[in-house]
């Protein structure tokens, strides 16, 4: 039985100004529990969601950024970040969380989940999906 669909989550909002980022992360984790083929995109201000060094202690709200580290354990390891969005914000991949997974087909080697891609590559990834959820 092939109930697996290709799910894409498109994240375009900064993390704390609105609830979108947090809601997206919740739905992503739920979709993983249903063993779907999940890919994530972070573009526009969405790249700020996975910025490293977040510390919300002075705001009295939850810093949910460590949760992204758990995605690898849920077999979510196709995380695409648009290079053009990073460039526009003066960021590089070194400014982002180091998200990894263990590849069971390669003796559980630790591999990077984040792939920096161009707009053209991102368009192709979007085109290949069965379901696209936008946050």
């Amino acid at each position: 039985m092939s109930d697996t669909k290709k799910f894409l989550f498109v994240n375009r909002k900064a993390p704390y100004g609105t609830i979108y980022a947090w809601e997206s992360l919740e739905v992503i984790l739920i979709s993983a529990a249903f063993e779907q083929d999940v890919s994530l995109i972070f573009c526009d201000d969405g790249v700020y969601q996975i910025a490293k060094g977040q510390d919300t202690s002075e705001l009295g709200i939850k810093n949910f950024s460590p949760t992204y580290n758990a995605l690898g354990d849920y077999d979510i390891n196709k995380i695409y970040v648009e290079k053009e969005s990073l460039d526009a914000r003066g960021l590089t991949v070194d400014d982002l969380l180091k998200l990894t997974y263990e590849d069971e087909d390669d003796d559980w080697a630790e591999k990077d989940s984040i792939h920096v891609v161009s707009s053209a590559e991102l368009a192709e990834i979007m085109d290949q999906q069965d379901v696209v959820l936008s946050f």
Partner: protein
Amino acid sequence: MPMLHTINKSPFERGALESCIRLATKGSSVILIEDGVYGATKGTNASSMVENAMKDLSFFVLGSDLKARGVDESRLIDGVTVVDYSGFVKLSVENDKVQSWL
């Protein structure tokens, strides 16, 4: 008359900062809070707009909102002043009016 302008939206998603810079009068202060703090970072598509405006306007940024978003102070545009909540209050009372660019 000195006025304090507050910006709480990212310059990459909304035009609030751009409109504020266009319309704020010389000598006014602008404080970047919440998602607005991204407008205080250098090397972005928005930073030259802020740098150019600094000859007429004073820019401040709320430190707690920077910290929450993982924006290190080393990434701020030169001349932007980091303030805490009491600094924000002080700016609010020092100015005759506060305009919030929502």
